[in-house]
Structures are given as C-alpha cells and as structure tokens.
C-alpha cells in the first residue's frame, strides 16, 4: 500500500480512484444516479462552489487565504436583488455586484499583503463584516429575484448543459492555462513557495497576491449571482455555510496550505467528488446532517493519507 502511495502524482490518482469508487457505489445503490440528468444536476449544483474554489486555489498556492469569499457571495446576491427591486437594470446591478466583490477582494489584499496581517484573521474579519452587512441590508429576510435573463445564468441550459457548469468549466480551463503556461502562473507558485527568495530575484510578490485577492472577491460575487439566479431569490446567509466546502475542496485537491504546491485540476476533481457524495447521499435519503459528517471524514482521510505519503517519500 505504501509503495503504491509513493509514486509521484499519486495524490490525484488516489482522489480519482476514490471518486470512481463512490460513483460505482452510488450507481449500484440508486438507479437514478448514473442518469444524464442527475450528472448534470451534480454539476449545476456544485458550480457556484466550484467557482469560488477555482480562484481560492491559486490564492492558497501563492501563500494567501480568503475566508470571506462565501460571505461575499451572500452579499452579492442580496445587492443584486435589492438593486433590481429598486428598478435598476439587471445587467447594471450584476456589474455593481461584481465591482463590489473586486473592492472587497482588494480590501482583503490591502489588509493581508500591504499591512501584513495574518490572512486567516484579516479575511475572517471581513467575512464577519460582510456577512453582517448582508443581514442588515435585508433584515435577515430572503429577497425574491425574478428576471428571465438573469435566472437563465443559474438554471438555463446551453447545448443541453447547465449554464453554471459551463461557466465554471470555462474558468477552470482558463486558470489551468494561466497557472501552467504563463508568467503570472510562475509568479503564483514562486510567491507561495518562497516569497523572500522570489522578491530578491524581482518577482512582484505583493502585486501577484493583490491580484489574486481581488479575483477571489470577484469569484465570490459571481458565485453569489449564480446561486441567486438558481434559487430565484437571494438569501443573505445562503452561501456562507459553503465556506468550509470551498476550503475542503482546495485542500482535498492536493493544494498545500503552506503554499507553493497544488493544481487547479486537483481542485476540480475534489469539487466533483464532494458534489457526487452530496448527491448520492441525498438520493439515498441520508439526512443532510450526516452529509456534513461524511464530508469531514473524507477530508480528514484524504489529508491524512497525503501526510503519510509525504513522510514516506520525505519529499
């Protein structure tokens, strides 16, 4: 078992094996599981989480962390719903929400990068502020949001595929290319692996992190729009509960919390795995409370195995 784990890239391989195991298990337990519609619904339901994971991955690789991303998603949905209710054009409202996400992301960057606060504490602070603001703005109530064009983003189909899934995959493809094949991608890994050495050879470490924090804010806002469009309503606390899933997926996908290591594809696989687990357990009528237990167990197992693997290879 250990020698199998020693091979390079076995982290992702292990995740893939586990994913297939889960998929086969569920397909024998539930006749609906393997249907095209169910597969698409897994994708659509995970898309808004996957989007947040997509930007969180390079941020963590570069040595940052953004705990406020899910709260930004909540606020962004609320802002769009309120602006729309006030008669503002839905496209303009969406742009305002995205800009707000960018602004909050920059604020996180300012605190964590320029002022040098611990990102865990800094973004936990903004998370609390933003989550609170969303509740204040709505009085804690869910705001309906009906607009055919807007709702299409969340529940429409294009070429038979759910729109959110397409959006998410496009982001992953773009990021996969950026991380592997561009100068910026190099800077991301370099900054996370050894920021001081990177600075000394002229890598713009601070600017790289600022960009990633800002993009993380935007990803939160976009993800809030998709969620609101899916639900035909904006609930101030709808997205906040998914923060742990976002972080869990990134870590499960093999990204090191210490920075420097990780891939966007590992994250995508982890997102699909967590989505499949949720879906399968729901189909089998397992209570959502147990689903939390399962998700946590999978995360601990994966991280534990990875630790054993790292120690065995000494790498």
């Amino acid at each position, binding site marked *: 078992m250990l020698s199998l784990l020693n091979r390079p890239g076995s982290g992702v391989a292990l995740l893939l094996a586990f994913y297939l195991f889960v998929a086969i298990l569920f397909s024998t337990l539930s006749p609906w599981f393997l249907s095209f519609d169910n597969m698409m619904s897994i994708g659509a339901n995970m898309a808004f989480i996957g989007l947040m994971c997509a930007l969180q991955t390079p941020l963590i690789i570069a040595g940052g962390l953004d705990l406020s991303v899910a709260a930004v998603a909540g606020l962004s949905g609320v802002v769009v719903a309120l602006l729309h209710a006030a008669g503002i054009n839905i496209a303009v409202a969406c742009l305002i929400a995205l800009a707000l996400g960018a602004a909050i992301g920059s604020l996180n960057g300012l605190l964590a990068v320029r002022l040098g606060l611990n990102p865990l504490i800094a973004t936990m602070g903004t998370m609390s502020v933003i989550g609170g603001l969303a509740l204040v703005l709505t009085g804690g109530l869910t705001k309906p949001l009906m607009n055919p064009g807007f709702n299409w983003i969340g529940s429409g189909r294009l070429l038979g595929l759910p729109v959110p899934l397409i959006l998410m995959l496009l982001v992953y493809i773009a990021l996969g290319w950026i991380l592997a094949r561009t*100068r910026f991608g190099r800077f991301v*890994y370099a900054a996370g692996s*050894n920021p001081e050495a990177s600075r000394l*050879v*002229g890598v713009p470490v601070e600017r790289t992190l600022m960009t990633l924090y800002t993009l993380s804010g935007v990803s939160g806002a976009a993800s809030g729009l998709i969620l609101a469009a899916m639900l035909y309503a904006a609930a101030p606390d709808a997205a906040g509960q998914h923060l742990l899933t976002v972080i869990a997926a990134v870590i499960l996908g093999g990204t090191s919390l210490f920075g*420097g290591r990780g891939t966007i594809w590992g994250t995508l696989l982890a997102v699909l795995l967590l989505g499949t687990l949720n879906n399968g357990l729901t189909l089998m009528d397992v209570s959502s409370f147990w689903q939390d237990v399962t998700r946590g167990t999978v995360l601990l197992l994966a991280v534990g195995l990875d630790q054993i693997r790292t120690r065995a290879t000494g*790498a």
Partner: protein
Amino acid sequence: MGSIGKSFGTAQVLRNADLRLDAGEVLALLGANGAGKSTLMKILCGIYRRDSGSIQLDGQPVHFTRPEEAIAHGVRFLPQEVSILPDLSVAENILIADLPLKRTWHGREVDRATLNTKARELLDRLGCDLDPDQPLHQLSSPHKRLVEIARALAGRARVIVMDEPTAALAEREVQLLFDSIAKLKAQQIGIIYISHYLDEVFAIADRIAVLRDGVNAGHFDAATASRGEVLDAMLGTSVDQLYPPRGTNADEIVLDVASLSFPGALNDVSFSIHRGEILGVFGLLGSGIDQIGRAVYGALGPLPDSRITLNGAPYLPRDPQQGRDSGLGFVAAERQREGIIPDLSVAANITLPFIDRFAHFATLATQRENDHVQHWIDRLSIRALHRNQPLRLLSGGNQQKVCFARWLVEGLSVLILEEPTRGVDLGARQELYLALRQWTEQGLAVLLISSDAEEVAGVCDRSLVLDRGQVASYFKGGSSPAELLDASHFHQENHT
C-alpha cells in the same frame, strides 16, 4: 562502527564504512556532499537503521533504533541548525529534558535555584560564563551552540557528533567553540566533527577520517597529514588547485560606488569594479558585509543618498526589480531562506528572474526555456534527475549552481555574490570558481562578498576589507588570508 552499509531505495549510500573514536579525542569526518557522512552519523545516533555492519560502544555491541536510545547511551547528535527554544532561559534550555522540580502548596513547579546551579556547573565545564537566566534569543550564535553542547552534557553525553558547527559563525566566534571543545576533550568526551573547512579541521582534530562514495577513503593523523593528501582522499582525483588562475582586467569601470551608506551598517563606503574582474569584499560578522551587496542591489530599499554609477549612468538602488533591470544579479547568503524556490522545478528556478525573455506574448515559450535551462545544466554540471525535478530535492551544492545559473543571461553587468560557497562541498566549489572565472573572461564583473578569508584571497583579483561599516583597506592585486584578517581587526579584537 564496522562495515556499515545502508541503501535508500536503489541508491547505496554506505558500503563497508568503518569508524573508530577514542575517549577524549576529536575525530574530523570529511567527505564531499553525498559521500555518506551524514548517513553514517545518523545511523550512529539512531535516526536511521543500518542495513549491515555493527556498532560497539565501550566494547559492547549496540543497536539504536530510535534517537532516544542513542541519547540514553550518551551518544548525542548536534545538527547543523541550532535547535534551541528561543523564549526559554539558558538554564531551561540546558536542562529541558530533566527539569528539577520542587513541591509547593499548589503542586510541583520548577525549582529555579537548583536549575540555575546545575546549569552553572555544566556551563563551567565548557569554560563559559553565561547568565543562566538570560533568554536564549538574546544570545549570539556561538553561545547558542554552547548551550546546545551543555544540554548534551546534561544528558551525560560521552560521544558528541557535531555537524558543521561553525557554518553560521564568524571566525572570531569559532575560537569560542574550539575552547569549549578542548575542555570537553579533557573530560574524556569523544567528539566527531563534520566540517567543510580544512583550516578548522587541522586546528581542532586529532585524527581525520575521510569518506568517499560510502567507503573509507583515508585515515590521517592531523599533526602529520598535509592538506593536499586530505583533499586528494576526499575528491578522488588529485586537486592541485581549488582556485582557478587569476584573469587579466580591462580598465573599463562597470560599477562605481562613490558613496554608499546604510544606517547602522555602512558608512560612506566607496569602491569600483572593472569589466571582467572579481572584486572581493572580506569582513567579519557585523562589519557590514551582510549589507553591502544587497544595499547596491536594492534589496534594502531605496537609498537616495548613495552615489553610484552603473555602466556610465547614475544608478539609485530602489528594489530588486530595479537592480535586476539595471543589469545587476544577486545571490543571497542564506540559500534556503533567500535563494531557492523549493517547489519550483530546476528549470523554472533558473528562468525566474528573466522569465520575460522566455515569454511569447502571454505564453511561455517552452522550447526556448528548455534549451536555455539544459545549456546551463550541462555547463555547470548541475546534478538533477531531470530539469523538471523540484529544486528542493537537489543537494546544497547543486542548488547553489542553480542560484548562479539564474543570472547568466545576455546583458548582465555585475553579479553580486554573498557567501557564494557556504555549505557547498569542495567539488562543487571548484566548479563554481572555475565557472566564475570563465564568465569574467567574457566581460562579467563580480562582487564576491565573503567571511571566508581563504576564499577571498584565493579567487579575487582585488579585494577590500570592511570593518565596522567602513573600508579598512584595499588590496590591489593579490592578498593572503592573513593580510585580510589583519586588516579586519581580527587580531586586535581577540586581544582586547
């Protein structure tokens, strides 16, 4: 230790290695990187298990499977990096494994009086008069080292293995350590001393054992052996000269520093470097050699009061990006902390500073990058399995070659090197010196900053000596290590 063998996977690191240590003796263990020194010592100290062979302690066969067992038998390993608890006091650090306790009305607590008395006794055995109450983070590096040794004594150590104990020490501080080692010898404690510095080895050791490729390559009596013999045994081939011949200088000045100051470290320093020249800067710890290179490069931030001319144009240090873009290269002293990007591949590490040159619009030009990288891997004989191997998996010497290779691009004017061969084995050192000389012949100017007087004297065309932030003297043409040390006030400080 007899016929010790050890393999990792398919790599056999040790074959039939023997070692004998007498009580009250200092045995120097020498060998190039990868010769098996560390592995042999880790087997002795129970960190690794041996595949074959035997170990006897006082005539009794022993087999340590965990470090705790070795410690219980009085065998101690002091690793290269000092392992201390910075916020605890000297006494607490020394007796951490066995803190004396006393009963009080609310339970047991540390008996500070006994603690300090015991620590005092142990420090006395080392001839060291530190205050037991002082927190460790206030101490200098050699004193931290001594605290570590005192901790070993507290565990009734009889064999102490020191892995490059002077790597982070300036020469003046080394003496402090040597005095204590002499005291330990007198107390019948055996010491195995691993070092790259031949001078040190001849100064402190009674006998010298050399390992090469996992087998014994020679045993020498330190009193009678010559440096040449020992070097030959270490490197296998005969090393006539570690340092390459000197070059001929052009007259053209590349970098002219008319005035450079940095608060608390440098005070109105001036010097100039010609094309194709290696200018050495020698100094002791705290003389300003830690700052001079990075101040010019821009790593210390903007220095608007400096007067520097680079390639005939005024140059103000601002930040590393500006230094790099102006034609300066910089290799920092602390390789692990400031040099390597451990998770990036060898290739990505090499192309990182000038990544723009390997980009085609937004995309990296893989082929051009690979060609460039392969060229330098071959030229510098960087030993890596593949250019895409993460840099953290390479040995120290090869990592340093990568840190050099980063800067070897068209258009670099001055390469600034801090302690370029610290912790680098002799073979790789020789290769680096030779490569440096070749580049200077092509017009590169090098500023070589080092606290190793031998290195500065051996490699540099001209040199200057820093003392307390000022230039103490210039040497045109060659200099000897003794002259450099003299100029650095090394002797004066020792006698006052």
